């Protein structure tokens, strides 16, 4: 089976400082992959580079077999690759319903499309506040809205940047359920995390990034067994 997302030797720089060095990783259809590493290791930049939000070079960067190097961000999104940024970036002036409208894209593939009914079933909180402005929501609610907004585009894979950052630990569990629900729907997820325990609870495979390079790639179970690696790369 060919990978859904295939990243091979991806490098990126900010100005003259290179921050990513030959990152290679793959995401299979319907799979959850965790990208973990410390703050500043290059997780966010990796996701942004895939999404075309920072300029990057790659030996090969394909989604559904099509090269996405140099493609504009909106074109990548339209291929079916969703993106939920670290700081969520809800449109605070728009209502919940309007936020979701911005994310709406035509259905693709054979799967049944996401619509308000299905999303509200997944995130019941949002249904109650569909007329509320994004700015008047808590951090956890905004995170759910950000995910729902991306799902409106009927993506086949989602890049999820630090879903547990800055929200109450109790909401983190709801986040974990949401990721499992997406997986159950056949949506592949590549998430970046600092919170390895959270990642371990939901990821099929784990990829550890350190100083802009891939340090480890394998099943989450293997990662959990390797305590020396964990201590060394994460300090935990």
């Amino acid at each position: 089976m060919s990978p859904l997302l295939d990243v091979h030797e991806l490098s990126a720089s900010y100005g003259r400082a290179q921050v990513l060095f030959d990152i290679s990783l793959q995401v299979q259809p319907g799979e959850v992959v965790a990208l973990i590493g410390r703050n500043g290791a290059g997780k966010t930049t990796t996701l942004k580079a895939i999404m075309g939000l920072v300029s990057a070079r790659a030996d090969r960067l394909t989604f559904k077999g099509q090269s996405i190097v140099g493609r504009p961000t909106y074109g990548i999104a339209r291929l079916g690759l969703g993106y939920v940024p670290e700081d969520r970036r809800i449109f605070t002036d728009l209502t919940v319903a309007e936020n979701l409208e911005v994310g709406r894209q035509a259905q693709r593939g054979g799967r049944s499309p996401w619509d308000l009914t299905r999303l509200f079933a997944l995130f019941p909180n949002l249904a109650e506040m569909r007329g509320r402005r994004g700015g008047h929501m808590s951090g956890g609610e905004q995170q759910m809205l950000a995910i729902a907004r991306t799902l409106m585009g009927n993506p086949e894979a989602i890049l999820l940047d630090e879903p547990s950052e800055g929200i109450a630990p109790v909401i983190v569990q709801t986040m974990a359920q949401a990721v499992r629900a997406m997986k159950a729907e056949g949506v592949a997820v590549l998430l970046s995390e600092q919170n390895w325990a959270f990642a371990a609870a939901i990821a099929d495979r784990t990829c550890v990034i350190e100083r802009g390079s891939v340090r480890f790639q394998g099943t989450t179970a293997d990662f959990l067994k390797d305590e020396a690696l964990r201590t060394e790369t994460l300090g935990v």
Partner: protein
Amino acid sequence: MSLLSVQALSKAFGGVVAARNVSFQVERGEMLALIGPNGAGKSTVFNMIGGQLRPDGGSVSLNDKAITLASPGERFRLGIGRTFQVAQAFQSMTVGENVQMALISRSGENHSAWTPARDRHRAEARDLLELVGMHEAFERPCSELAYGDVKRVELAVALAGDPRLLLMDEPTAGMALRERAALMELTHSIATSRGIGVLFTEHDMDVVFGHASRILVLLRGEIIATGTPAEVRGNARVRQAYLGDLPLTAAAP
């Protein structure tokens, strides 16, 4: 007499209550952590103490002197130093000049317009930078520093005002794990040796439970718990509303 006394602070933004009846004290030499989910009102409370926001009600006093309506500049002169969530060094200046700038301001030389700024207070700036381990970068432009180093420079700048109270808004955000512990240990040793009270907000529960002497939990603008790290960790309401099932977070030992 407490170093900082906050009484019944309240603030609302267009009908949304960001802080309701918040009261607490900070003592000399203690590290008080203010925690809570995003949007709980941590920044609001912080900015009312720092003078960036004016409260709708309540009072703030430092060493029994009311400072509720004082400007950030007046608070600086009265002994409040602060660092920001996103490190806000003066990007166009060198590391040394950042600290020199604070020393110039403390010495009331802001209107001096003839002798060059870069020749003033060099020795003292160097000493402060040595304290945070950044003296070797004295002549380097701040824009070239790694983020963690900018945070250290910020700490030196805050210390240049010889503060009694240090406000640190997410001091370790954006830093690597080992750097986090080092910065907090440094802050702790400076606070104890100089008798400075430290009030900080933080998302990293390792930092909070590892370095705070006392913790204040804020939820929807209200304080729902205060106590030592052990007390807060054991508090049922805090677990239910914020910390949740601890093993899922990296805060677990």
